[in-house]
């Protein structure tokens, strides 16, 4: 083996051939990775971070190719290696972990065989010894009962278990380099925390270098030593984790940190600062800084006329930044701060009230010959309320029932038992067809997926205009001006009316969808994960837009989310849900401070925070969320609760303890919880 870095990428350029022409996704990228080191590669979608990973293993597909540069790995240049040489390295010296573990595993092969074939291919070992190796590896990634797991098919495992299998498969040959491409994206926050902890632990044991690719700055902080920030295929800043996150020098890095909601900030004290504009296409590159068009510190000429060299940050020898103005910029300060209580706001008449709401789904229709299965319990005995002009956030992991509540509110589903009142009118049993025009106008919805929220066959103008006509009774001739005004409210140009969704970016689609929801001038806006599919810079703009519109119109916002930081940022009242029930409910500042429900506590401790100084003891949840047919008799959280006190948890449903307007459903008394728990979110003073 030669001296020097394990992986040395020198002026790598990658291009994709598209219908519009050759697209230089990566114009010339250089970085090094030493043996045993963990480098985080961060950036928003489309910045080329995954392309870098795939270029290293030379898997770019038919459209992509390396157009220049070298990738030296263990002394060999990977860009010129032949198929046989690549095969010897892939899976043996360089292994990969992918974003979607379910899709990355062969659905018709047992996981045992998929694990065993790696050493059998690369080391020619017998099936027996490959099996022993696989079993040992499964134990190492902390899967219970490895023998049984070996015989399972991927669909029989949970997402977290699947990702552990993929990690085991990657590490089974002891590779020198492990590339992880968004390994925790799509996993629930508690599962993500467990996987990240596992990666840290395995790292210290296996001494593999890690190239950790993520859009999530928080998870990078947990795993990596160094961070490289990418924008439009170029490295804009690179350095040790502490340097990057406490003293970012590049305006883009700062922009990323400023637009990210954190557990310690809210809309009143520290509004998010979105990055202006959107990522330009890689087809049109100017000679200067790629970020210039969106940069608040841009100086036309200096920044835009010639390539930007990267320079070392003063006083930090390992910290490099590609910005000509880096030395001129003031030191960055973390945006933080939470406001006081707003109890006065909460005394109002509830606009939306959910009372003892239960929603059961009939089991899947099938030709049954004997017996019948019990209905699936999506939501059970839920109580919530939101006043006029307030924001109620419902937060929880996948399958907790939060979206079902949104559907019952909007009439897309009807309640099985209990009620929902909308401005004093009982609507729980009313499907949307059964609601009169006034009720339909009163409540509108914003959906999660920008790609499916607008009909690809219709123009934006048609979508909004149709809503105006149906809900406001506008005539066809009258809609044009209304559409233009609504587009203006969501900060889109009137020309967008003629576009189809295909021609819009994710953020633009979501804005158009908000405009459509506003067409009826609703009193209540139900937003079901409206920003979770967007990049952080776009997410900030949409979150700001929603809060702005809500404040201007005095509308009630019911905000469904899995993201605790976003919820902390914009909610007035928060409901934490687990397995169809509300675990904790209260004003946002109370829910985010002890006493916590043990589940809230675990959730909060699991959130990855992009701040190397934020050190909290992680509370890892064991096991998985029970399936709908195995819901515990007592406390729903009892099977996984780290603070379980005894059989009472399994047998008796927990009492709802009320502390003024704060409710916790737990057997442990509130003061006892308060005594046991440390605060997990330290609010900082503004401009510390």
């Amino acid at each position, binding site marked *: 083996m030669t001296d020097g870095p394990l992986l040395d990428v020198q002026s790598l350029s990658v291009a994709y051939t598209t219908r519009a022409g050759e697209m230089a996704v990566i114009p010339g990228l250089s970085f090094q990775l030493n043996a045993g080191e963990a480098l985080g590669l961060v950036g928003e979608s489309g910045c080329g971070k995954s392309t870098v990973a795939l270029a290293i293993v030379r898997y770019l597909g038919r459209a992509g190719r390396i157009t220049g540069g070298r990738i030296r790995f263990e002394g060999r240049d990977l860009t010129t290696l032949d198929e046989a040489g690549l095969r010897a390295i892939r*899976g*043996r010296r360089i292994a990969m972990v992918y974003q979607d573990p379910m899709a990355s595993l062969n659905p*018709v092969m047992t996981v045992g065989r998929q694990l065993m074939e790696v050493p059998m291919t690369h080391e020619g070992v017998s099936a027996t010894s490959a099996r022993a190796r696989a079993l040992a590896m499964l134990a190492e990634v902390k899967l219970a009962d490895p023998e049984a797991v070996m015989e399972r098919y991927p669909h029989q495992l949970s997402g977290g278990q699947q990702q552990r299998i993929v990690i085991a498969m990657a590490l089974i040959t002891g590779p020198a380099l492990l590339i992880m491409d968004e390994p925790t994206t799509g996993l629930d926050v508690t599962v993500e925390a467990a996987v990240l902890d596992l990666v840290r632990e395995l790292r210290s044991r296996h001494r593999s270098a890690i190239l950790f690719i993520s859009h999530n700055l928080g998870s990078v902080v947990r795993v990596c030593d160094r961070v490289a920030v990418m924008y439009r295929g170029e490295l804009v800043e690179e350095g040790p984790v502490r340097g990057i996150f406490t003293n970012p020098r590049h305006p883009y890095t700062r922009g990323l940190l400023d637009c990210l909601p954190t557990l310690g900030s809210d809309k009143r004290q520290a509004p998010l600062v979105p990055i202006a504009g959107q990522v330009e296409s890689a087809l049109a590159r100017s000679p200067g800084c790629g970020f210039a068009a969106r940069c608040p510190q841009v100086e036309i000429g200096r920044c835009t006329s010639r390539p930007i060299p990267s320079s070392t940050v003063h006083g930090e020898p390992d910290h490099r930044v590609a910005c000509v103005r880096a030395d001129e910029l003031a030191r960055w300060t973390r945006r933080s701060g939470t406001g006081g209580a707003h109890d006065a706001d909460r005394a109002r008449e509830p606009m939306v009230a959910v009372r003892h709401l239960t929603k059961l789904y009939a089991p899947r229709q099938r030709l049954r010959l004997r017996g019948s299965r019990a209905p699936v319990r999506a939501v059970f005995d839920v109580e919530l309320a939101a006043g006029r002009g307030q924001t109620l956030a419902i937060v929880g992991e996948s399958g907790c029932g939060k979206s079902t509540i949104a559907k019952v509110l909007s009439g897309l589903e009807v309640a099985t038992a209990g009620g929902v009142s909308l401005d004093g009118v009982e609507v729980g049993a009313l499907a949307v067809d059964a609601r009169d025009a006034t009720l339909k106008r009163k409540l509108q919805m914003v959906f999660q997926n920008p790609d499916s929220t607008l009909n690809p066959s219709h123009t934006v103008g048609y979508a909004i205009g149709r809503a105006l006509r149906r809900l406001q009774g506008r005539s066809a001739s009258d809609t044009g001006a209304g559409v233009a005004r609504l587009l203006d409210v969501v900060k889109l140009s009137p020309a967008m009316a003629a576009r189809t969704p295909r021609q819009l970016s994710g953020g633009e689609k979501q804005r158009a969808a908000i405009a459509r929801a506003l067409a009826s001038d609703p009193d209540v806006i139900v937003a079901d994960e409206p920003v979770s599919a967007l990049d952080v810079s776009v997410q900030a703009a949409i979150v700001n837009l929603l809060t702005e519109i809500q404040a201007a119109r005095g509308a009630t916002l019911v905000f469904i989310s899995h993201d605790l930081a976003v919820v902390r940022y914009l909610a007035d009242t928060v409901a934490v849900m687990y397995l169809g029930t509300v675990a904790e409910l209260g004003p946002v500042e109370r829910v985010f401070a002890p006493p916590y429900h043990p589940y809230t506590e675990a959730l909060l401790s699991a959130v990855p925070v992009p701040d190397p100084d934020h050190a909290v003891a992680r509370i890892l949840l064991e096991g998985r969320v029970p399936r709908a047919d195995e819901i515990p008799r007592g406390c729903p959280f009892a099977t996984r609760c780290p603070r379980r006190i005894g059989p009472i948890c399994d047998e008796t449903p927990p009492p709802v303890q009320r502390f003024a307007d704060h409710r916790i459903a737990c057997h442990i008394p509130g003061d006892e919880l308060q005594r046991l728990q440390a605060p997990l979110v330290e609010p900082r003073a503004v401009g510390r």
Partner: protein
Amino acid sequence: MGRFFVKHLLFLLLTLFVVSFLVFTLNEFSPGAVARKVLGAYATQEQVDLLTKQMGLDRPVLVRYVDYMRALAAGDLGYSARFKLPVRDVIFKHLANTALLAAIAFACIVPLSTVLGVAAGMREASRLDRVILMFSTVIASIPEFALGVFLASVFVVWLGWLPGTATLLAGGGWSVAAQLVLPVTVIVLFDSGYVVSMIRASVVEVMQRPYIRTAVLKGLPFRAVILRHALRNAMLTPVTVIMLQINYLIAGVVVVETVFAYPGFGRMILEAALFKDIALIEAGALVAVFLAVVTNILGDFAYMLLDPRIRA
């Protein structure tokens, strides 16, 4: 598993019931036609009416249908007016002939289509893929009778290597094997064109799945990626279609049988239809539908065996 079979069996019975009833009532649209057929064009209307009455054809259709089902349950399929033989004898003889043709063709189609489909789909847009895709598209576009004419003009008319008919009779000095070559070739080519493009499309789709990337980046040889990881996944969708080909091979090859004067099941039904031989049509339709539903079940069953996600 048990539920799977019970469910399909119920559907089989329902289908047979509906189809037999529909075919039976078709007869109602041409009253007196049967007797007229039997007696010929020169019989008087009285004679026709009398025979109609004697045959019980003037009774309500439901009554006759119940009678028919009762006879059927006793194993009596009726008497063929066209062949002047019990329907049972006629049907099974022709069915056996067609089964011979179908079995040989099926044994060629499956491996041929699988190999070509996988070879084309494993590297989408490669030269091999383009060639196979164009070949299969063109082949599947040529009607069977045209394919028969093209092949016959080369191998029968021009080269004189093969017989132009396959009557399965020893006359003409051609062996049965030689007689079968052209009909089998026509069927195999026509049907493979379709099956190849099905399999190719499925392989192309599977090759884009993330688990294929996983397999490649594990460092597996391309051969192992295809055989171990792609093949079984890629056969999930086509396996049902492949099983349905049995149905086509037995009941759908009437055109090929006609081209080569092959005494098969399809041509028998054609003759029965043209002659309005109701008993034979009815029995033939029942057999055809029975085969269709059974191949459907076989297809679903094969799918279940391949996909562990369904098996559970």
